């Protein structure tokens, strides 16, 4: 294969391949350079800041080793934020996957007005998040909450029941979880729907001929076949929720008493509003190993589910 005659014969071809290879690199380079400069470099800078005493005010910074991390670990608010971020993510994503699966099954058949239903269901995902969440701020308003008014009108709430949704610790967490579910449900639904419609009709027909019942069909055939795509939906949901601060920022700003503070919002309040860039960077970097772990886990599982 390395023999001279062969090389001569394939020289033209090889030059062509070399050419293509260089063209490939040339087309790819600008995007890669941009991403490295604007994602890779700031990421390294974030790590450096977390090991320094950088603040918003001063232009100089000094290397201080792991001191910031030690300080953060001694801070109970940090642990509270970490715990809240995990609860917020886990609960909302379990709800999203279960509800999205039900909704996708319901939408996977034909009925009149389907396009309108689809449009309405997609609204929370397609509207700018911060604006949709303001709608919820109004729904949860302490004085004019339509939820409270409605539940009182139908007799669920007595005359003395008037919960302050965003002002009571457990209710506030439940509220932000509900809004997050609302926002991510459409994405998960359309992804699962795509998975459902990619299952060949023959498989369903064969199962029907064999007299397989609804639940068995669902758990033995449909769910295993859409598993890889469901995992992809879940991966994105986890990443979006764990790193999100918009829902929290607009609804509660981490309150009451930091009971809805998550890592992302805590990093913002410490680093930008508090001016302590070093601590803020260190807090936000705690997001990263968790994200990597989650991604590796899901991609491995998705690949395995696809093979079997």
């Amino acid at each position: 294969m390395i023999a001279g005659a062969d090389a001569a014969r394939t020289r033209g071809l090889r030059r062509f391949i070399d050419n293509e290879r260089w063209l490939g690199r040339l087309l790819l380079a600008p995007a890669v350079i941009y991403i490295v400069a604007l994602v890779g470099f700031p990421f390294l800078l974030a790590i450096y800041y977390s090991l320094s005493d950088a603040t918003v005010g001063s232009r100089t910074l000094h290397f201080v080793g792991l001191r910031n991390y030690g300080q953060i670990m001694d801070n109970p608010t940090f642990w509270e934020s970490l715990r809240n971020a995990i609860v917020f993510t886990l609960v909302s994503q379990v709800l999203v996957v279960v509800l999205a699966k039900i909704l996708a099954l319901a939408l996977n058949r034909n009925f009149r007005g389907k396009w309108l239903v689809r449009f309405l269901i997609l609204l929370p995902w397609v509207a700018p998040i911060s604006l949709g969440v303001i709608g919820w701020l109004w729904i949860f308003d302490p004085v004019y909450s339509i939820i409270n008014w409605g539940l009182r009108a139908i007799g669920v709430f007595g005359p003395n029941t008037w919960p302050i949704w965003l002002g009571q610790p457990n209710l506030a967490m439940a509220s932000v979880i509900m809004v997050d579910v609302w926002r991510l449900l459409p994405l998960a639904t359309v992804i699962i729907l795509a998975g459902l419609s990619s299952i060949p009709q023959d498989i369903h027909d064969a199962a029907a001929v064999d007299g397989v019942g609804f639940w068995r069909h669902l758990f033995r055939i449909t769910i295993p076949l859409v598993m890889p795509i469901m995992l992809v939906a879940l991966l994105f949901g986890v990443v979006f929720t764990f790193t999100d601060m918009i829902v929290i920022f607009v609804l509660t700003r981490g309150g009451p008493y930091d009971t809805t503070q998550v890592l992302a919002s805590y990093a913002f309040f410490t680093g930008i509003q508090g001016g302590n860039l070093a601590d803020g960077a260190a807090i936000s970097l705690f997001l990263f190993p968790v994200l990597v772990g989650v991604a590796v886990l899901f991609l491995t599982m998705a690949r395995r589910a696809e093979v079997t």
Partner: protein
Amino acid sequence: MEMASTPLRRWISRGGHFVIVAAFVTFCAFPFYWMLITTFKDTHDLINTANNPLLFNNPPTLENLRVLFLDTQFGRWLVNTLVVGLAVVAITLALAVPAGYSLARLAGRWGQQLAIGIFLTYLIPPTILFIPFSRIIGAFGLQDSLWSLVLVYPSFTVPFCTWLLMGFFKTIPKDVEEAAMIDGLSRFGAFFKVVVPISMPGILTVVIFAFTLVMQEFVYALTFITSSSQYTVSVGVPTFLVRGDVYFWGSLMGACLIVSIPIAVIYNFFVDRFVAGFTVGAIK
């Protein structure tokens, strides 16, 4: 089991289906319905707790929209968002279209690894990067300028759109370019003159998505921009339309509705393409 198709059972199944779909539609769309009602409500009606909030107890009014457009900087924020969006879309296309093609066709094994690498940039979200960026932007003297957003936003639109476009380009049969190259075009010529034109649906999808990502962005704009005249819609409305503790609910809801609905309508046309590109890229 073949009893399943008696009229009664079919009716129950259809009714159950209707109830499930109706419940989900209510959950998803109610906040927007509520925005719509609130936008056109008279403020006195809105704050009178004795009134039924679901009805117009006073006649509907356009006063809230008048306040929104004439007494706030909402119009300015819309223009800012549009300017940033168009600039970011242009940068994104210039970078992501060639990169997506290269990953789909020209790059071999290292290309696949690079594609995964690009995918992994999702794992470094704005909430990690905004702190170093706050200083980088300051060093460039771009704080409080829309250019800071134009510079930074492609850092998340480019990976996403490259990934999407890679999926689209993979679905185009290789024969298309091979035929063009036999007809005498170079590889680049075949890409530019043949593949790009037939990929217009995919490229249009990317334009829409890059634009909506810009409209959604919140963290960077909140961090880099401090003067109200430079805000984009997604940050201006939640921060500056809220004056102290008094919320102008009618105007706020109007602002949310006006921005959300047109985007939702356009986006709706492209969702299927988006999901296709997205899952082809992710699973393949």
